[in-house]
């Protein structure tokens, strides 16, 4: 459902193949069995990306006053950005890059259900808290606009992914009481074909997309 490449990797000498960054034709993708019945076409099944994916750019910007935030719904709801697939058998891999600025971004699936928390019960993201607003928050340098490292996955009728940009108080410009938060997205549209009887190798090597609840509670 989510994965992220640490910016630390940019400081190391590694060899990265295209398929390490974006799903390519022939890639194996497995949805865990925890996906609920509303997504039974995907739950517990293994698929192969059946055609060369199409990469669709998109951008979202919001101008926000300092010490304030807004919610951006990526789903196909009336108020959403409508970035989800409309059909079963389609997976959208959404690379989220952010332009520089004095803001941070929280992630909910859907709001107010957070993902980036810690095990202790009080350690969950909260923009209203002067300390917890930094817990689980992504910054533009975590996933730069020209080299995104943060990837989200969406299938038809999945709960709305909500991005919540929060503008810091007192940025790098003393007269700037506002910030423009710009998300540069690349949506990798993947057609999936189910692999009816996957081999052990396919099961072991497939990219596993876990359900929301599997990312919580530890």
């Amino acid at each position, binding site marked *: 459902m989510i994965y992220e490449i640490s910016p630390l990797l940019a400081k190391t000498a590694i060899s990265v193949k295209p398929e390490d960054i974006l799903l390519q034709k022939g890639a194996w993708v497995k949805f865990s069995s925890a996906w609920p019945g509303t997504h039974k076409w995907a739950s517990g099944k293994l698929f192969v990306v059946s055609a060369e994916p199409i990469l669709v750019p998109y*951008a979202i*910007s*919001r*101008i*926000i*006053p300092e*010490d*304030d*935030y*807004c*919610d951006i719904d990526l789903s196909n709801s009336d108020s959403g950005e409508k970035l989800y697939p409309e059909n079963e058998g389609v997976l959208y891999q959404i690379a989220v890059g952010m*332009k*520089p600025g004095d803001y941070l971004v929280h992630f909910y699936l859907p709001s107010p259900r957070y993902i980036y928390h810690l095990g202790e019960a009080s350690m969950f993201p909260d923009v209203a808290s002067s300390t917890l607003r930094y817990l689980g928050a992504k910054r533009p340098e975590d996933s730069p606009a020209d080299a995104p490292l943060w990837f989200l996955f969406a299938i038809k009728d999945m709960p709305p992914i909500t991005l919540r940009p929060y503008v810091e108080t007192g940025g*790098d*410009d003393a*007269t*700037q*009481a*506002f*910030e*423009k938060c*710009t998300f*540069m997205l690349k949506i990798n549209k993947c057609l999936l074909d189910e692999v009816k009887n996957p081999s052990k190798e396919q099961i072991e090597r497939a990219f596993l997309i876990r359900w929301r609840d599997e990312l919580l509670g530890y």
Partner: protein
Amino acid sequence: MLSFVTASTSAQDLATAPKHHTIKPSSININNEYSAKAKITLQDVFSADTTNGVSSPTQNTINKFAVVVGAGLTADIPEDELKDVKFLGKIQAVSDVTSSSVTVMVGYHLV
């Protein structure tokens, strides 16, 4: 990119940031051949989005930069002194005089 206006007490448009960009000025040149000093203010004009705290946002006009240039003088502000200045919307120049003898030239790029 370069943009140029003459001084006016009414706001003059210099540039407008596209929706997904901000404007970073790289140079400002003000040439005052008028008979008196002139104050030039650069404003950032934009409308914010609806947020948790502001349900009906209105247009904002924020003064971002001001300089007074004596009669017969020129002010040149290099990029290094502008590195922390950016504009979210439209750049407008407004002055305390209206004269075609006072020119305002702004170099900028989109980020």
